[in-house]
């Protein structure tokens, strides 16, 4: 079987199986950055650097080494793997990426606070933590005062200073054993966000975590940048916070196509509430793989809003385990693609215990030759009586060449449940278009109105207002003749 690549590096025909040898250069890259005398991380002060170096070699290394071995064994998934049947990652497996090392360049070189402001939302009222090419940029980050006992810091710092808070959860929620990308991320595990919320603590401002990919510096041999952000959120009983993960890359150049492979682990204790946003707007040549693993205890509430706009290939795995009675989760999603973009959402909601509630609504707008996959797995365990689950995936195809695969996957092992699911694929309503045009509204504006109306309920669910407005602006900018369209929304 042969794989032909199009100009943007996307696999066009059926993918060739990826041999485990494709994983070898990751091992080499790992060895390179671990070489003595190079400090891979950046931190606020030298004393921390020293403590990091010593601590990193103590308890984390076996985990990372095991993950690297596991990744070498697993190799990249192929389309023969059930979970990857519709999406070939051959373009990622074939490409070569390099890690940004802190010593190679100043992490935030060329990026000013004004640039960040453009990539962020109106963020004055949030905590903002910025990483550039995977390396923390302290000069672009800030924290507001935090309630007593709350730990909000870089994961690297937490590994060194808060081992007792980190170790029981890190790499235990997201399992590297059977997932290649999680194994790979764990092998390169270094930095990201750590948030610990003690009992009944509330962080009122949103926590904005911004990962920026910049073109690779010449000193890195021109290799495209890879990053493996790792985030860990441990929410104690009755705590509450909202987290925004943004991924942004350069919009123009294909050569700078980076590879982001993020893993976010979330543990919610009883009655904890987390509102979680993820906004991906890489350039059109980037690769983005993101895994979110959530474990919910009694009566906790988790809401996810996943918005995917950029990247040549974006794959999301969102797994929620409703591990104790009365837990509730809501998964909202929106993907908008054009050109030859591919986006793939695999979500799993595991109703493990009785009387849990899940709500899921994903919407897609696909134009050009783009392709979308939605696979929504709902598991209802034998024990999970009183499960209440509703899932819907709705897609709008704007071109005859766009394609979407949607698959609800229900595994129900208890009869005392309410489970509903719906999947729909359609085009813009011709009758509605004509109605608008008959009221003097031009064709392009009418199309924009209807597209906007289609996505507006997902956007409306975003409760961080400046984020909602920023997203609205981003979406409107993609619609032709959009002036005034915003007004049309209800």
């Amino acid at each position, binding site marked *: 079987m042969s794989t032909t690549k199009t100009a943007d590096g996307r696999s066009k025909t059926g993918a060739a199986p990826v041999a485990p040898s494709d994983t070898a250069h990751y091992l080499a890259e790992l060895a390179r950055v671990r070489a003595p005398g190079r400090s891979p991380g950046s931190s606020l002060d030298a004393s921390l650097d020293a403590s990091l170096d010593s601590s990193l070699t103590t308890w984390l290394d076996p985990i990372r080494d095991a993950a690297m071995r596991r990744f070498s064994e697993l190799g990249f998934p192929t389309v023969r793997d059930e979970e990857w049947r519709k999406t070939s990652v051959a373009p990622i497996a074939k490409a070569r990426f390099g890690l940004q090392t802190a010593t190679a360049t100043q992490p935030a070189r060329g990026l000013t606070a004004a640039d960040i402001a453009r990539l962020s939302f109106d963020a004055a009222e949030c905590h903002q933590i910025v990483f550039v090419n995977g390396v923390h940029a302290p000069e672009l980050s800030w924290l507001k005062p935090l309630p007593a006992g709350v730990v909000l810091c870089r994961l690297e710092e937490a590994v060194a200073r808060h081992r007792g808070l980190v170790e029981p959860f890190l790499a235990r929620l997201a399992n590297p054993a059977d997932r290649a990308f999680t194994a790979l991320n764990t092998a390169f595990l270094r930095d990201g966000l750590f948030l610990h919320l003690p009992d009944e603590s509330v962080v009122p401002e949103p926590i904005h975590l911004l990962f920026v990919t910049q073109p690779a510096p010449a000193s890195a041999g021109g290799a495209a940048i890879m990053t493996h952000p790792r985030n860990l959120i441990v929410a104690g009983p009755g705590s509450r916070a909202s987290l925004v993960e943004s991924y942004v890359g350069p919009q123009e150049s294909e050569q700078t196509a980076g590879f982001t492979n993020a893993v976010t682990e979330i543990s919610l204790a009883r009655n904890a509430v987390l509102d979680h946003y993820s906004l991906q707007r890489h350039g059109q040549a980037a690769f983005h793989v993101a895994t979110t693993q959530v474990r919910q205890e009694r009566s906790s509430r988790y809401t996810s809003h996943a918005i995917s706009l950029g990247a040549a290939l974006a794959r999301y795995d969102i797994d929620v385990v409703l591990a104790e009675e009365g837990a509730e989760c809501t998964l909202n999603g929106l993907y908008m693609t054009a050109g030859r973009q591919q986006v793939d959402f695999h979500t799993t909601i595991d109703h493990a215990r009785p009387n849990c509630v899940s709500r899921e609504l994903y919407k897609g707008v696909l134009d050009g030759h783009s392709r979308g996959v939605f696979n929504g797995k709902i598991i209802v365990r034998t024990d999970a009586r009183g499960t209440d689950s509703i899932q819907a995936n709705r897609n709008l195809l704007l071109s005859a060449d766009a394609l979407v695969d949607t698959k609800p996957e229900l595994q129900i092992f208890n009869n005392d449940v309410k489970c509903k699911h719906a999947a729909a694929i359609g085009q813009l309503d011709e009758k509605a278009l*004509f109605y608008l045009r*008959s*009221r003097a*509204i031009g064709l392009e504006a009418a199309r924009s109105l209807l597209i906007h*109306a289609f996505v507006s309920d997902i956007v409306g669910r975003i409760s961080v207002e400046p984020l909602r407005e920023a997203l609205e602006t981003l979406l409107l900018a993609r619609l032709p003749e959009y002036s005034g369209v915003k*007004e*049309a929304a*209800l």
Partner: protein
Amino acid sequence: MLEIRNLHATAGGKTILRGIDLTVNASEVHAIMGPNGSGKSTLAHVLSGRDGFEVTQGEVLYQGRNLLGMPPEERAREGVFLAFQYPVEIPGVSNMYLLKAGLNAVRKHQGLPELDAMDFLELVKEKMSLVEMDQTLMNRSVNEGFSGGEKKRNEIFQMAVLAPKLAILDETDSGLDIDALRIVAGGVNALRGPGRAMLLITHYQRLLDYIVPDKVHVLFNGRIVKSGGKDLALDLEKKGYAWIEEEVSRSQPVVS
């Protein structure tokens, strides 16, 4: 105002209009009546520019210009308005916005400045009272969850705001109870006036009790087979469409 000459049209390969000739002058109200399947709604759709119909012969001049060459939005901007038989529900788009965008598109086309929010609101209030429409409907999605009567009133209200030169009312009476019919007809009558032509398309005569036309035409099998004054509608009401059918078959014997 409107001149239809020898108009032939097909839909899905099937010939529906077979040579319509009709002239409507400014300020006139014409009723087009006919049995189901005679081509009434097709005529309305061809005039307003809906996709799915092919004009195979003939032409339509509107204010001396080729109407059929204009996309639907240009027709609307030039002053053609279609009141739909089945108004479309558009979730997520507000009624208020639709009207404002539409009105401003018309004004821009006429070289007029956009209406500011206050003036627009004033206009909306005035025109809503014309059809006794509940103001809360304005902030809802277009036609979503409206009753049949509310939808039809909304059509006439939109017509009042957009102030067209040529209004085509497609079966505006269908599905209305007598009170709603009276309100809708009252709205239409208030909009009659110099410079505005109307084409009422209807199956039943009862609408014409409330909106008295200047001329009545009977459409049958894609052609206008009879034209007359308002009394023609009363004859139709008494004798039914079968009477027309007989007349047509007598005057056009089948040639073998």
